[in-house]
């Protein structure tokens, strides 16, 4: 077993017993990167110098008795839409090529405070818009389970790095499923927390009322520890939650005896691969055997949620991406007037999917259309929220597949935007209502491709979500790792 197969918990134990150093953990991850990056392209930037310095500092700190907690000395990768001071941050767009932020995102500051070792910045769909990482302006990432297939998106790089072992954990961002879906497609754990619990300061914004940062990891406990390290009220984020935060760890081993688990009726049927449905049904049965009460729950508004999402998200994105104008940072094209400069810069700097969404969002918000599109979409959100609230009167958590399908081949959906959007059908409702959701890997299909199981909870219900997710992980006993073909150099 290689060092990079260790979970954060296991790596932490060996750090503290003196069996391994943070530098060794880092070298092992960098070694995996050097052997696999040509095939996976998980990273846009690997910061060997910075990571090395952080690993040495972690080792020195630990030796001096300064134990900062579970992430100390652990090599972590960051999706390249999180600002890292002095380290190139591109959001996988040409419009930010060479951009070095003058500040760290709050989550980055917190990770540094916790003694984590930042390995580098991972690839994503440009500005987090996509479900396959094929929209990156720097080339796609590939799935460690089958390099002819996508790792999912938009946090595909982070997912590929964790699945392959070139990081022990990673951060991603989730606006419509962009952490959970790639986690599902690469056989790892990924979660989106309650909206407002993880600061968005320094996260390059896509859709402000939907975006949340969250962890990707090899285990549910790793995800809980990482979430604890990065969440909390932040005065720099006006949407940040200032109340009490749930205790994540105490219920992790409690099991599901007595829990009421709701199966979402609408997240099944046409478009869902049989292997996915079977795997999910199998786990639901095991949860029932383990003492949970299984209830079928209907959320009819989920069917229209995707339509609402594809109005809200682009509308908010069109506003957020207005700042990329060639004036203060990033790409600048030549222009006769400022308007000309801006229009040419943006046309040159943004890829097709981003352009598509900006146009869609601008249209949906323009005079005469605002209420019919954006206004109506907001009403759908309110109705969806009420439907979930009613459901949570009857159950403690909800479950579903994370994605209707396993990883699809590269290129299979790029020419059909609608088909790509449909991959988010199980995940995007949670972004609309602000609730937390986690994907746990549970099985491989007959093509040796991972299947993810989603557990959802009400806002600030992470304790129940983790409690059920930990049991799903125990019941699934999913220990498979992708076989990485060695790159001959």
């Amino acid at each position, binding site marked *: 077993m290689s060092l990079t197969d260790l979970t954060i918990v296991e790596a932490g134990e060996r750090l503290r017993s003196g069996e391994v150093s943070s530098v060794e953990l880092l070298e092992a991850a960098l070694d995996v990167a050097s052997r696999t990056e040509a095939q996976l392209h998980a990273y846009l930037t690997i910061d060997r110098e910075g990571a090395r310095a952080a690993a040495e500092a972690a080792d020195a700190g630990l030796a001096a008795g300064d134990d900062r907690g579970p992430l100390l000395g652990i090599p972590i990768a960051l999706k390249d839409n999180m600002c890292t001071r002095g380290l190139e941050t591109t959001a996988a767009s040409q419009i930010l090529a060479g951009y070095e932020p003058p500040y760290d995102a709050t989550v980055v500051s917190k990770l540094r405070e916790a003694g984590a070792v930042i390995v580098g910045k991972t690839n994503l769909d440009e500005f987090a818009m996509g479900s396959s990482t094929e929209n990156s302006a720097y080339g796609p990432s590939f799935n460690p389970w089958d390099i002819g297939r996508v790792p999912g998106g938009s946090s595909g790089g982070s997912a590929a790095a964790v699945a392959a072992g070139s990081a022990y954990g990673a951060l991603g961002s989730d606006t419509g499923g962009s952490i959970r879906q790639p986690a599902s497609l690469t056989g790892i754990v990924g979660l989106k927390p309650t*909206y407002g619990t993880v600061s968005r300061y320094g996260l390059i914004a896509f859709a402000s009322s939907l975006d949340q940062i969250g962890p990707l990891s090899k285990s549910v406990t790793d995800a809980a520890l990482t979430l604890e390290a990065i969440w909390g009220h932040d005065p720099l984020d006006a949407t940040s939650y200032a109340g009490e935060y749930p205790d994540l760890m105490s219920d992790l081993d409690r099991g599901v005896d007595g829990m009421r688990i709701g199966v979402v009726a609408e997240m099944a049927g046409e478009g869902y691969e049989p292997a996915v449905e079977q795997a999910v049904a199998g786990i639901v049965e095991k949860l029932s055997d383990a003492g949970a009460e299984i209830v079928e729950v209907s959320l009819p508004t989920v069917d*229209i949620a995707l339509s609402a999402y*594809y109005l809200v998200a682009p509308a908010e994105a069109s506003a957020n991406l207005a700042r990329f104008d060639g004036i203060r940072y990033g790409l600048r094209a030549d222009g006769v007037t400022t308007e000309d400069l801006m229009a040419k810069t943006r046309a040159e700097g943004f890829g097709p999917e981003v352009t598509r969404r900006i146009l869609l969002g601008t249209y949906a918000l*323009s005079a005469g259309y605002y209420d019919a599109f954006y206004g109506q979409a907001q009403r759908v959100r309110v109705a969806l929220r009420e439907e979930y609230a009613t459901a949570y009167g009857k159950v403690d958590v909800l479950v579903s597949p994370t994605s209707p399908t396993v990883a699809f081949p590269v290129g299979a959906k790029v020419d059909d935007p609608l088909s790509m959007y449909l991959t988010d059908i199980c995940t995007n409702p949670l972004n609309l209502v*602000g609730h937390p959701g986690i994907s746990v890997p549970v099985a491989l299909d007959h093509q040796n491709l991972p299947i993810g199981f989603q557990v959802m909870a009400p806002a600030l219900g992470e304790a129940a979500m983790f409690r059920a997710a930990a049991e799903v992980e125990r019941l699934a006993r999913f220990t498979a790792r992708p076989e990485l073909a060695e790159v001959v150099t």
Partner: protein
Amino acid sequence: MPIDIDIAHVARLARLALSDAELEVYKSQLGDILDHAARVQSFEGEPQIDSAHPLGFVNAFREDETRPSLDRAEILAQAPASENGYFVVPPAMEEQ
């Protein structure tokens, strides 16, 4: 029924200098997506829209105290063109 969009107008609003060919492609794609998204128009929900924040939060205020901001030199170092602490830009209008 596909929705007819004044795509040139939308592109102008969004400050995107797209070619006629590109505009045609985007117009058609947007039509398809909006067909799907427009299902929300028939949705009957509450006329009141509360806070856009999913958990209904409003107005996060702080004390009116001055604090240091970001370092100006560091910010200007990222500028495509700057001079004496200003960002340099072409004129707002063409000279007559």
